[in-house]
């Protein structure tokens, strides 16, 4: 379903998404309610955005482009690999609670003002 939204130039209604499923696919076209349910779940996962078109129908669009999603997946793998080996130096997220405590003491902050990542 995400691929259909990626391929579309404009946001699509649930009916248009359903229509975009190939007729000669591996199974029958999903019902409109099924398409709506999946779109709502994708929206809850922040992968799809919903808007109201000029004629009042709900229209859905992919929140992120295909390349953006691929980049996100590669970044997640890079962070996991890079952090384990200390090879990747990140602007944020590299310090833990003990490091924060050192900084807090050096700045003369009290615990209730402190920061934990």
């Amino acid at each position, binding site marked *: 379903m995400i691929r259909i939204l990626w391929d579309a130039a404009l946001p699509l209604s649930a009916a248009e998404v359903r229509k975009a499923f190939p007729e000669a696919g591996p199974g029958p076209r999903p019902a409109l309610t099924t398409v709506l349910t999946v779109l709502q779940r994708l929206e809850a996962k922040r992968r799809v955005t919903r808007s109201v078109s000029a004629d009042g129908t709900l229209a859905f669009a992919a929140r992120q482009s295909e390349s953006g999603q691929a980049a996100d997946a590669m*970044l997640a793998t890079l962070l996991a*690999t890079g952090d384990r080996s200390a*090879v990747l*130096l*990140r602007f*944020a997220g590299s310090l833990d609670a003990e490091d924060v405590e050192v*900084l*807090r003491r050096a700045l003369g902050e009290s615990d209730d003002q402190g920061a934990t990542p």
Partner: protein
Amino acid sequence: MRVVLILLAAAAVLALAVPAYLARAGWRTRRPGLALGLWWAAYLGGASSLVASLGWALVVGLTGPGTGTDQYPQGPTDVIVFCWTALIAVGALGSLALTRGEPLADARRRSVALLTLLSGAAAYRTEQHGGVAVSYVESERALAASLPGRTPRVVVTSRLEDALTAGELHAVIEHERAHLVRRHGWISRMARLNVSCTPVLPGARQLDRSTRLLVELVADDVAARACGPADLAGALTAMSALTGDRSLLLRARRVAGRPRASS
């Protein structure tokens, strides 16, 4: 024998007493570069003293009992047993370093391959910044990171670029560039390898932890001098709002008020 004992005592002081002092020194966050230098001088000094003590013992053992202060009270058999024990210990440490270093080297190769792929396939813009390639990739994740290597590279995501002003973004890139220019990646990997080989030594854990903190503070200071503390503090504050990492606010407070280098 006295020389060996002196060298062993020096190794113990450098491996235990100096790290214990440095781990508590209040000035280390004000002078992170000096603190990082002292940590590594103590580590390398301690390791060198240990190796020198073994080497000295071997030389004296192989050349026979001497006279004066380096005369062994033990017989030749004891000296030979000591020499073999020392050689076995050095060999075991070397093979441990190779075994533990291989997964780290493998992870590094995979990270370089991934970043090259990411920069080539997903970058919507690449710029040269002081001899370092900066790749901008489209992503919902707010991230800036650097990866050293034959082609050192900085990656910045669209989410972060959109959230920062031009001056703040410049400060972030200068911070990452400082890591690359000052070889912080190599230092961090050595500290990680050291702690993975000798996890029971408190000094090794403290070295790894201190290196991780101090390289960030050194890079902050370099970026603050190059771009001004206001832009770096602004970038740290914005990044904290995006990621929820409140340690960045402490780093912002630390750099605020630092002078900008006159150009």
